[in-house]
């Protein structure tokens, strides 16, 4: 049967060629190398990194519970920041299992449900991973851990922790690690293999992407979505309302890093790199149509990252005292969003 189809395909290709005037023939591009690289070396690697870093977070919080001291507290805080990085760098591709399997709420719900968290800590309930798994997303995940290990004003000392908080933190990190494992395994080709939808886009039997183009559109729209969220949500809400409590990673003072990593997520997909792995990204498609636009996108990505990182002091401080720097960063992200939306998207949509 395959052979028959192959023969017919060849025949049809010949028909295709002979039926048309030569000047109208456009050889369809093969975007397989881009999709393979972005699926395998960017998306999967990011989730693998997240899975590994949350395991370290479990280890450091477990060590802190066993030996509460300043060194172990700082290790745990650093492990939180290190785990946060791949998560924020995954937010450029927030589609598929992360949503469909309800994992995002378990990993990154915001805000923390502080009244209920206090009530759970004051309850006699045994704090295990399974118990935390069953709680609402606003009582677990990154932000609950952040709230407990950093405190509300960055001055929490080891002596400020209760035994119940230590127990809660370890169980909560185990639960977070479990959710990141589900996420990594859902994409992993040797597990649930969601990645095949990207790798085999346009092939028969692909229930999501009828063409390679539609997979590229998905990837690009993911980038536009996160640029929009950083500029018009994450930066804009606390800035426009002059309200630091609307800042997502306020307790850890990690917001600038979060935002920059969100833009790096765009960069990773655009240029096809994550960590030490590299290959073709969306940039290859754009550069082949307009090298000027490709240069512009790359420059705007860097400008956005630089502007975010150049905001003086913490983001909490800056929204009140360095508003021009914050607005500058917001504008750079908006520029990038606009370029992706009004110049890059039309190219991908018309492939």
């Amino acid at each position, binding site marked *: 049967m395959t052979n028959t189809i192959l023969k017919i395909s060849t025949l049809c290709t010949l028909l295709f060629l002979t039926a048309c005037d030569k000047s109208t023939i456009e050889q369809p591009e093969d975007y397989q190398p881009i999709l393979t690289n972005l699926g395998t070396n960017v998306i999967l690697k990011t989730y693998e990194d997240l899975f590994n870093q949350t395991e370290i977070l479990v280890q450091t919080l477990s060590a802190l519970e066993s030996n509460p001291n300043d060194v172990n507290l700082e290790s745990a805080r650093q492990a939180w920041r290190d785990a946060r990085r791949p998560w924020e760098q995954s937010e450029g591709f927030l589609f598929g*299992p992360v949503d469909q399997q309800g994992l995002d709420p378990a990993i990154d719900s915001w805000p923390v*449900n*502080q009244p209920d968290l206090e009530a759970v800590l004051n309850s006699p309930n045994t704090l295990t991973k399974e118990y935390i798994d069953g709680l609402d997303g606003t009582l677990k995940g990154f932000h609950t851990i952040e709230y407990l290990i950093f405190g509300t004003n960055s001055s929490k000392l080891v002596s400020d922790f209760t035994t119940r908080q230590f127990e809660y933190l370890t169980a909560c990190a185990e639960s977070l690690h479990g959710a990141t494992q589900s996420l990594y395994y859902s994409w992993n080709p040797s597990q649930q293999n969601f990645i095949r939808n990207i790798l085999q886009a346009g092939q028969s039997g692909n229930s999501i992407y009828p063409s390679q183009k539609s997979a590229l559109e998905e990837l690009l729209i993911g980038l536009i979505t996160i640029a929009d969220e950083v500029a018009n949500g994450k930066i804009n809400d606390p800035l426009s309302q002059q309200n630091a409590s609307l800042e997502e990673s306020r307790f850890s003072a990690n917001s600038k890093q979060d935002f920059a990593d969100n833009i790096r997520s765009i960069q990773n997909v655009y240029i096809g790199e994550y960590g030490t792995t590299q290959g073709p990204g969306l940039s290859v498609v754009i550069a082949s149509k307009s090298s000027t636009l490709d240069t512009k996108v790359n420059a705007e990505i860097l400008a956005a990252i630089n502007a975010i990182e150049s905001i003086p002091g913490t983001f909490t401080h800056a929204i009140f005292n360095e508003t021009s720097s914050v607005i500058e960063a917001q504008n750079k992200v908006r520029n990038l969003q606009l370029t992706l939306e009004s110049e890059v998207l039309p190219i991908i949509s018309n492939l």
Partner: protein
Amino acid sequence: MHTTKLYVGILLMAAFASCQKNDSAPPVIDEDVNLGGGTSISGTFINSFQQPAANLNTQQLDLHRAADVAFGDIFVTAPNEINPGLGPVFNQNSCENCHVANGKSPFPANSGELRGLLMRLSVPGSGIHGEPVPVPGFGGQLQTRAVFGKSPEGTLSWQTVEQIVQYLDGEEVSLRKINFSIDNPYETWPANVLLSPRIAPAVIGLGLLEAIDPSDILALADESDLNGDGISGKANMVWNVEQNQSQLGRFGWKAGQPTLKQQSAAAYNDDMGITNPYFPKESCTGQAQHDGQTDDPEIDESTLLAATFYAQSLGVPRRRNWDNPEVMMGKQLFSKIACADCHHPGFITGPHPEFDFLSFQIIYPYTDMLLHDMGADLADNRPDFLATGNEWRTPPLWGIGLVETVGGHSNFLHDGRARSLEEAILWHGGEAENSREEFKKLNKQDRLALIRFLESL
């Protein structure tokens, strides 16, 4: 062998089509390709239901983006500084956690994680405006979660029963029926409770459905079946809380809500326990678990309007593969076996009082917005205003072919029992029984063609 022929056919068409680029004549396209009129957007990907309408102006686009935040906002227990007011009892903590990626909720994998499934409740009879009568101690909906220290009103469990349906050609399909039970009620479960399971629908195209002139919907109604086609079509008349009057029902599985704003306000109140200007009392008011707090309403008018506007201003994805011969054949069959008599293809929207992008749009939602008796097998036996226990509002079909792409599942119907479009068709009874029987008489090729048409929507 047939598939091979089809394959050749498609490739030949593709070869042919590719030569027409230089021709001056515009390509002939099917009239309903732009299902959502000017709001229609392109693309087949998981984010398809999250794109703003294509015809928003810059100001409306900014408003849509701001509104997206409200739709995603997660609520927590009062008196939290941010987003307080969740519960005390609730089903979900944000709009987005039922309407994941704005799509239809899957049937849950287990009773511990219900996602977008909930259970409506009432006792027999109707209230002063014709509404369902709440169950003492439980209200109109079973809230299956609670803030810490309160009890869920109960939990849901279910058993599935498979039943075999046979086509005329002998092929068999197994249908899954779901029998629900309420477990662990927080207080004694009263007698005579009527249950209606509901799955969260996709939220695209709702502004357009709201903009259809009522007279265009009422013109399709034929409550006494005067034309004798076996299909009645009845408008639900429901209570508009803001205007304090009866009005055509449009939203919800039984068209129990007149406007998108009221639908959203009811969802805030019943699903999340968030009081608002429309429904300023907690869903558990008068019950043992009421929090006694005086923080109502917990969201203001602007938040309610933002969540409403977000749904109003989403784009409807265009049809795909509309020019595929199999799809074109399926579309003809869809009309021929009278599916289109209830899944009414097109309307031209009326003037929308607020938003020009919804006005005078040529749309193809494939619904008549009316109630139909769908037979005993689909019945919930729970009346909702004028809708009887057998009646459901024809759900729109636009976007139905992207449900699996967006949500990663292919569960359909009000309780998510159908595991495929084919199963959903085979559940149709009552006024749709003739169409279902005609479908069962089709040969496999024609049955597949009809499903391919649905997948193109």
